[in-house]
């Protein structure tokens, strides 16, 4: 048993020229697979990463995103007295009304335009989102048309550097600081003062309300909101709101799976070709092994292992090829908020393992028929063959 395996492993190395293209072929398939999936993972993680587990988000009933929600000032006032609302050290309730506005900005390098989410936020709103960190510059001052933007957005869009001014509609906004959302959905946002945003963009109402309450009392809060006729609002945990926004990743996953399937069919054919040729040119060696007393099963397993090793090397190569793209930042359209979402390719260990398993599967399928053929070679005839 041990000999054919060693024989097959060595064969992979000895006939490197003929196997190299197969390895490359499988490697490229795996690379595409890993890249596409890492894109989907990165996108999903940016939504899964967002939100504080103690926070509750309130939106208008029926709305599917903060951008399409409305909360009036009267409603916001009523909400200040909800049961279970936590307070800060000064005794102020931890509740904030945000104003969400979509603005169109130009991408860097003439790459067209995209919608960006502007979040009008209060002091309390900043406090409620500890994930967001000011990394450069300073905080905006209310009333001065100042904004702070995510550094990742600034890398992708024109005129978002600190000190720069950009225009939207008829208004000019000055960037005074950069924030880092630590791979959360806030990495795709521009922040400014909530009331500034309302007056500047002509909004009567706020968009959503974020508050902090003891999770054990969330039911109480929800019941209170639902039972109050003056509050046509719904409550949802902040983390859940964001983690529900992963639908954008579905088409990417679909595309990735489609590509992987189609390309792997091609790769199976290629692997089969190589393995058949490899079996064909070693007919005599196989015959010798059989004469030496090795069983058909051993030959079969040996060739399968050869194919698997071939594919494994290809898979590892593919993962290596995909690796440079890890943490590369990119963006696409989030269907729920209708705005650009910035995220990173994220290659995780389970994904690499999946890629390798995928490669080995391709190798095994590709070498199955050639291996069966090798194990069924008639001994005498194969010894005679040149």
């Amino acid at each position: 048993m041990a000999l054919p395996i060693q024989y097959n492993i060595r064969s992979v190395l000895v006939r490197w020229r003929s196997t190299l293209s197969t390895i490359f072929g499988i490697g490229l398939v795996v690379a595409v697979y890993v890249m596409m999936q890492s894109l989907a993972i990165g996108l999903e993680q940016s939504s899964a990463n967002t939100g504080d587990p103690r926070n509750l988000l309130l939106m208008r009933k029926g709305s599917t995103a903060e951008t399409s929600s409305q909360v009036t000032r009267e409603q916001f006032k009523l909400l200040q007295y909800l049961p279970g609302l936590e307070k800060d050290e000064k005794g102020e309730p931890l509740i904030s009304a945000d104003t969400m506005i979509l603005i169109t900005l130009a991408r860097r390098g003439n790459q067209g335009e995209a919608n960006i989410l502007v979040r009008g936020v209060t002091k309390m709103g900043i406090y409620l989102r500890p994930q967001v960190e000011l990394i450069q510059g300073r905080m905006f001052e209310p009333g001065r048309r100042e904004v702070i933007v995510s550094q990742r957005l600034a890398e992708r869009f024109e005129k978002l550097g600190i000190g720069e001014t950009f225009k939207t509609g008829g208004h000019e906004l000055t960037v005074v600081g950069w924030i880092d959302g630590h791979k959360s959905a806030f990495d795709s946002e521009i922040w400014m003062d909530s009331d500034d945003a309302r007056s500047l963009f002509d909004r009567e109402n706020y968009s959503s309300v974020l508050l902090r309450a003891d999770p054990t009392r969330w039911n109480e809060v929800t019941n209170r909101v639902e039972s109050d006729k003056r509050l046509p609002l719904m409550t949802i945990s902040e983390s859940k709101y964001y983690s529900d926004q992963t639908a954008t990743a579905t088409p990417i996953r679909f595309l990735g799976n489609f590509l992987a399937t189609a390309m792997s069919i091609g790769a199976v054919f290629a692997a089969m070709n190589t393995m058949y040729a490899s079996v064909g040119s070693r007919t005599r060696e196989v015959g010798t092994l059989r004469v030496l007393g090795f069983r058909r099963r051993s030959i079969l397993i040996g060739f399968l292992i050869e194919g698997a090793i071939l594919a494994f090397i290809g898979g590892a190569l593919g993962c290596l090829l995909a690796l440079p793209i890890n943490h590369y930042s990119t963006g696409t359209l989030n269907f729920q908020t209708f705005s650009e979402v910035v995220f990173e390719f994220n290659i995780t260990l389970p994904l690499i393992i999946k890629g390798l398993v995928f490669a080995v599967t391709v190798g095994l399928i590709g070498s199955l028929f050639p291996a069966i053929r090798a194990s069924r070679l008639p001994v005498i005839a194969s010894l005679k063959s040149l």
Partner: protein
Amino acid sequence: MSIGGFILRNAIRNKRRAFLSVLSVAVSLFLFVTLLVGLRELTQPPHDTGSAARIVVRNKISLGNLLPSRQKATIEKMPGVEAITPFTWFGGKFRGEEVLFGQFAVDPKVLLKVFAEARMTFEQFEAFEKDPTACIVGIKTCEKYGLKIGDFIKLQGTFWPLDLNLKLVGIYKGSIDDRNLFFNHRQLDEMPGSTGEVGTWWVKAKTLDAVAPLVQEINAAFSNTTAAVRAETEQAFQLSFISMWGNIKMLVLSICSVVVFTLVLVCASTMSMAIRERFRELAILKALGFRRRELFAFILAESFGLAATGALIGVGGASFLFNQTEIVVNASQNFLIAFEMTPRIMGQACVVAAILGIVSSIGPSLSVARMSVVQGLKTLD
């Protein structure tokens, strides 16, 4: 045996290998054209005859901001305007779920003037105009949900704080996207608490020449108001929509190049395998007096033939699948509209196949050229 017959016999001598090579080329080319067709679908919206004369006016801040309805009167008076309709995205849930078909509030009286392509009977149009709670729906959506005339369609507002109960009075077809639902804008205007806002204005110009000045005039007319607008042709509007997809185009193109590269690799290795097997025969041919040029021609013809057969199966299969059947469109649940193969994409795939055939014959040709007859005759494998 003729030379053609000789090449053909050689190509299919190892039937299994020829079969596998052709299939792997076919699969790869199929993938290649699918990606290109998909990319075209996403980046080049199908545009119809009327679209060149249509202007879309939206809020300058972004599409997510609304426009005041008073703007209609100003635009209407401009010279060169044939018709103007509000066009407001409703985005309601239907039967409790978010749906792929668009729902738009429009002005039924001018709808036909702005969108001349849609086909519907006159009676249905009349009914749509008369009844403010009426709606018309594209035939594809009707088929998908089994809707017929007289049905009531309940839409639960997500963006608008309003639920609609619309009566289906007309089913249109023949427009570029037979999926959408149109209803009377009065439903939104008369909503309690309405401030009279619309999503976009769609303006039809009288002539194509009037489009460019009209765009300028509309932009200038509102530039210093509280609701500055951006007017652009329908095509420019669609393109700005597409640019929101971000780097998808680059992504798909780079995948395409990876596919092509893999293809070349596989094909080249198959060819060199096939040639290596026959080194001795080629040496004999050389000894018989065949020139290098002729040997090259044999090799080239064989690899070209393999690639061409693969292209025929892959590209032909894809074009049958996309253009003759609606499998892909249906599988995407009408997310994709046309998904059609164009002659251009077919041409691109054929060019790739041709390059493939040529490139993969280079390696074997070189080794044949280098081989000396004696050495070749000695080769056993």
